[in-house]
Structure formats: structure tokens, C-alpha cells
């Protein structure tokens, strides 16, 4: 079925490669930066409670695609987004949608960990406070739960009032994941979340991704193909603004349909 869908030069819509329900449906998504076409007619279904990895060389549009899912491209001057993105059927680009409310549903973790120069506690409590949570007991519960979820609790439980900047790089990144989880998102977008981390910190993040997918839908951009192979259920290969192929990770890394994908994942590139 996949082979049939993607034997065409320009895949229009991806069959979900898993039997999971579609969480995010993207159709005819096109992004321009000024006169540059950054994404060209992308169709992709992101399955719920699965990890979808976006791979491809620099400039292929994978980060642009990720940022479309929570309208992070809105703020870029000259960026124009066309097409449809829906989350559980709700249109993301409807003028009535409040981007702040959208980003509560669709959280994001960045390449460089970016904790606020505040205490560990305040970093995690930041989002819930913004969204109106004032009850200290409830805040404490949220902080503890999300630090647990981010596999950081045991390392910071006795120093929640210390500055987040004292944490190691790997801990800071997990703190940022906890911070993203604290507002109760449904989708977690991760843009190269482990590229600045050492192998052990990376392994912790990857283990965490495995655990988080039970509760969240995860989309991850990574330059590290082995990482995509390790953590994801579904892999999408982008090249020059186009979605070349998407399929179950296991199949994509052993027997991809498209020669472009084959060349990229085997290192025959450029």
C-alpha cells in the first residue's frame, strides 16, 4: 500500500504507517520565506502516541515543517504558510485560533536548552502560572509530576529552589522537556533535542522519548539518523522542501522505496 502511494514522484498524502489514529493531518502545506519556497505541497499524517522522526539534510525543510505544527513560523518576517494543518480535526491556521492556546496543546523543545534564569521550580511552574494556575499545592504537584515524567526528579528533588543554570546540559534539556509538559500538551515537538548532548545524556533523552509517547504524540527533527532509527516509529525524509518518503522506521532503514531516501540514509549524498 505504501509502495503504491509513494511510487509517484510527488506523494500527496501518506497512509499512516501504523494503525494508530491520526493526530495531526497536514495537507498541501506550502511555506515561502520571501520568494524562496521552503516547503512544497506537503501531505503527512502524524499518528497519535507515536514518535515521528523528520530527517533530511540541512535546508530540506524539516524544521520549517515542525514549526508549522504550532505556528512558530508566524513570527518570521516574510514567511507565508499555505495549506491545511489540523490537530484532531481542529484547523491550526484558522484566523480564530489563538497561537498561545495552540502552543499549550503543542509544546516544543529546542536544540539548545534554554532554561530561564530562575529556579528549577519556577522554570517548570512558569507555563502553568501564565495559564492562570495560582494554587501552590497544585503547582507543586505539576512540578513534581512533570519532573518525574522528564526523568529529572530524582536528580533535582532536593534543590528545586536552585538556579536552573546550575544544571548540566543534559539536565537542562530534560528540564525544558518538563517545562513543555507542565502546561499539559497533547503533542510534543522536538527540534534536535539531543544534538548538543553527550552520548549518555542523549541516551537519557531517547529513553525519555520512548516513555513519553504513551501520553503524548511526538514529532522530532534530528540530523542523527541512528537516533531517528532508535526512537521513532515513523520516519519522514525531506529533501529540498519536499517530502520524499514516509514509512515505518524499520522499513525505511532496511528497505526504503525511493532511491533518494536510499542514497541519503546510506550516506551517498552530494
Amino acid at each position: 500500500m505504501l509502495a503504491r502511494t509513494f511510487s509517484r514522484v510527488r506523494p500527496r498524502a501518506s497512509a499512516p504507517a501504523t494503525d494508530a489514529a491520526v493526530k495531526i493531518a497536514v495537507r498541501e502545506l506550502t511555506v515561502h520565506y520571501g520568494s524562496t519556497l521552503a516547503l512544497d505541497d506537503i501531505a503527512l499524517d502524524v499518528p497519535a502516541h507515536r514518535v515521528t522522526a523528520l530527517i533530511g539534510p540541512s535546508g530540506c525543510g524539516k524544521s520549517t515543517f515542525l514549526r508549522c505544527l504550532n505556528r512558530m513560523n508566524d513570527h518570521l518576517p516574510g514567511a507565508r504558510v499555505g495549506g491545511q494543518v489540523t490537530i484532531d480535526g481542529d484547523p491550526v491556521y484558522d484566523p480564530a485560533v489563538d497561537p498561545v492556546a495552540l502552543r499549550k496543546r503543542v509544546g516544543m523543545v529546542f536544540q539548545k536548552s534554554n532554561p530561564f534564569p530562575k529556579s528549577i521550580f519556577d522554570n517548570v511552574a512558569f507555563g502553568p502560572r501564565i495559564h492562570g494556575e495560582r494554587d501552590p499545592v497544585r503547582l507543586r504537584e505539576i512540578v513534581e509530576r512533570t519532573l518525574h515524567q522528564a526523568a529529572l526528579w530524582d536528580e533535582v528533588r532536593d534543590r528545586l529552589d536552585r538556579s536552573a543554570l546550575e544544571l548540566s546540559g543534559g539536565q537542562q534539556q530534560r528540564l525544558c522537556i518538563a517545562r513543555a509538559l507542565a502546561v499539559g500538551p497533547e503533542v510534543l515537538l522536538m527540534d534536535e533535542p539531543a544534538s548538543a548532548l553527550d552520548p549518555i545524556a542523549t541516551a537519557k533523552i531517547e529513553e525519555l522519548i520512548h516513555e513519553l509517547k504513551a501520553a503524548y504524540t511526538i514529532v522530532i527533527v534530528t540530523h542523527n539518523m541512528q537516533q531517528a532509527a532508535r526512537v521513532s516509529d515513523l520516519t519522514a525524509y525531506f529533501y529540498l522542501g519536499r517530502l520524499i518518503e514516509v514509512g515505518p522506521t524499520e522499513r525505511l532503514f532496511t528497505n526504503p522505496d525511493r532511491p533518494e531516501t536510499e542514497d541519503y540514509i546510506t550516506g551517498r549524498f552530494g
Partner: protein
Amino acid sequence: MPVHTDRTYDQQLGQLRTAVLEMGGLVEEQIGQAIRALIGRDAALARATIARDDTVNRFDVEIDDLCLKLLALHQPAARDLRLITTALKITTDLERVGDLARHIAERAVELAADLPIKPYIDIPRMADLARDMLHRSLDAFVQEDPELALGVCGSDDEIDKLHEQLFRELLSFMAEDPRTVSRAMRLLFVSKSLERVGDHATNIAEMVIFMVKGRMIRHLDTVPRDLN
């Protein structure tokens, strides 16, 4: 196909292909030589064949080493990954074929002293078939030709039939004249070995299909007619 950005990797994959081929050629030659020794009652040639099995075994170890190195250092994917896993499995089959050649040569040494119980007709035919299957499966490997490989899978029946036929014939020899038992049994071992060579060639061909198409056709009840 474009070359790898990492040229050393490309070279090592090339080395791997060459080594598998060399090993295959050697093993094919071993079978031929063992059969020649048997038919010509040439104990010296048989012993030379037995001695050369060491070289086959060294190939097996070296190719495994190279595969492990490639797996550990390059995290191969897609067709490269399939080439390496195929090489790992093919060499196991080739090494077994080498052992079978040695077994045949050992029987040839034993049989060299006695007069043959009958003219050898089916055994050379089986040997030709087995070598041809092996040869074609290796050609399919080099040429990455799944159709050629599929043809090999279809030819195993013929060897199996010859083996059956020889089995019945040798049985009747033994029943008629118990003095032929030891020679007939040895010939039966040779026949069984050749039949096994056909099985190994089939395994190799099946792995070639996997390597090229990413499709496993092993352990299916029937050989697929085509691959599309």
C-alpha cells in the same frame, strides 16, 4: 548508484563483495576437485582438497570480521545493511559447502583403494548440477540479479531427484551383495553431500533476493513464480 560520501566505506563494501566471490570460487573449485579425485581414484588430489579446506575456513573468519567492522563503524542502512547481513549468511553457507567438499574428498581417499562398484554416472551429473547452482547463485550475488537467483531456487528439485534415484540404486546393490555395503554407503554419503550443496546454493540465492529486493522468500512452501 552514487558513491558514498565516505570513500573508505565504499572501498570496504567493495572488498566485502570481492571476498565473498573469491570464497565462492574457491568452494566451487573444491567440490569439482573432490569429485575428480573420487572418479579418478586419485588419493593425492583428494588429500590436497582436504588440506585446502583451511583456506576456505580462513575466508569465513575474515569475512565475518570485515562484516562486524562495517556494522560497528558505519551503522549501515538499507541496501548496504542488506549486503552485509547477506554476506554474513552466505559465508556460513559457503563454509558448509567447503566442509561438504572435504567430506567428499575423505570418501574419495577411502574409495581410491577399491574398485568402484559401478561406473559413476549420476554422481558427476549431481556434482555438475550442484556446482552450476552454486555458480549461478554467486553470479546473482555479483550482478544483483534476483531473477537469476530465483532460477537457482527452482533447480534444487533435480538434484534431490537424482539423490533419491541413487539412494534406491545403491540400496539394491547392498541388498544383492553385502560386500558392496561399505563402498555403497560411502557413495551414499557423497550423494547426500552433493544434495546438501544444492540446498546451500538455494540458501545463497534466497539471500541474494533479500539483498536486492528486501524481501525474504526463505521458508515459503513454494518458490514464488516472480518477484513483483
